[in-house]
């Protein structure tokens, strides 16, 4: 317990939309030095990105529920789009439907952020708190990757093959 308290007190606080105040290497180094080997192994396996992948079983039930809820809502939005009807998401706020793709993704990330915050209410300085910190850090790094120049480079790389001479 003390190790989690010390670790959480040493980590900079995170707020949605800010630049990540700490790198993953720094976070991992601090966690490795403070947590037990078993706790660190568990923390290492926790990843927002991989938990979202098909067939992965999130170890935290609340995270699993959040991701399942998100998945259902995404399915509902896609189905509604396919038949041109108004989608009715259960978890996500309806405001996400009006936004452009970037704003929508940010709204979804904000929703995930708030859900993660809610998961650790009353669980300060626990391993769950550390895990949620890591996930929020991952969200911040993801948001940081949303850069116009990167997006344009991705678009350009997709268009490149079409420049090949067609036979």
């Amino acid at each position: 317990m003390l190790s989690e308290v010390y670790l959480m007190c040493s980590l900079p606080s995170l707020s949605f939309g800010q630049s990540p105040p700490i790198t993953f290497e720094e976070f991992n180094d601090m966690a490795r030095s403070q947590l037990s080997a078993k706790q660190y192994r568990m923390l290492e396996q926790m990843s927002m990105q991989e938990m979202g992948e098909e067939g992965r079983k999130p170890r935290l039930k609340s995270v699993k529920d959040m991701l399942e809820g998100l998945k259902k809502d995404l399915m509902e939005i896609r189905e509604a789009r396919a038949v041109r009807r108004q989608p009715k998401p259960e978890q996500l706020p309806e405001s996400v439907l009006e936004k452009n793709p970037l704003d929508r993704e940010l709204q979804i990330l904000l929703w995930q952020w708030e859900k993660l915050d809610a998961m650790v209410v009353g669980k300060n300085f626990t391993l769950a708190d550390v895990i949620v910190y890591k996930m929020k850090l991952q969200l911040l790094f993801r948001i940081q990757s949303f850069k116009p120049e990167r997006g344009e480079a991705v678009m350009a790389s997709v268009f490149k093959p079409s420049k090949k001479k067609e036979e």
Partner: protein
Amino acid sequence: MASIKIKYTKTERARQKKILKVSERMLPLFEAMEKSLMSTILTIAEKIDEIRERIEKNKQAAESWIAVMGDDWVNIEEFISVNEVITRPMDVAGIRLQQFDHVDFNELPVHDDTPLWVDDALELMREQLQLLAEIKTLEVQIELLEEELLDVRARVKLFENRRIPNAKMAIRKIGQKLQDDERLTIATAKVMKTTVNNR
């Protein structure tokens, strides 16, 4: 032009007249073909400009959200690529060209948990890739039509500057020569007759 050897015979004159007749009939056809090719090339170039404008409009529409395509968690390049540009043959001004029909894409299925922006990005990319492929097909059409235009222009010049003037000159020269020959024959005959009578 001056170095052309002309046979001063009636047969040659008839042959040159035939060449002139055919050339004068062919020239307007080639001129019309030249005009038609030029107009077709212009139309295609205008179409390319229109498509470029659509591509630019799509880009501008996506400008406000293109940043999300930089998402570290998604590799959008894996989701879509061009498999084949499908075209169908058509004849323009007598030339066989390929007309754009559609693009056959290699697409990975979008999973239920794939971020929602991927759907919008794929829609945009499909549209842009189709438009780019159409431009490519039209550019190839212009290349072929321009090759043909060069050929037709060469023919027009050939008829205007060589065949028709050469034939006209040959006909004139043969005519003069034949007239001279005729006069000479008559004069010779008269001289011969006078000489015989005087004896």
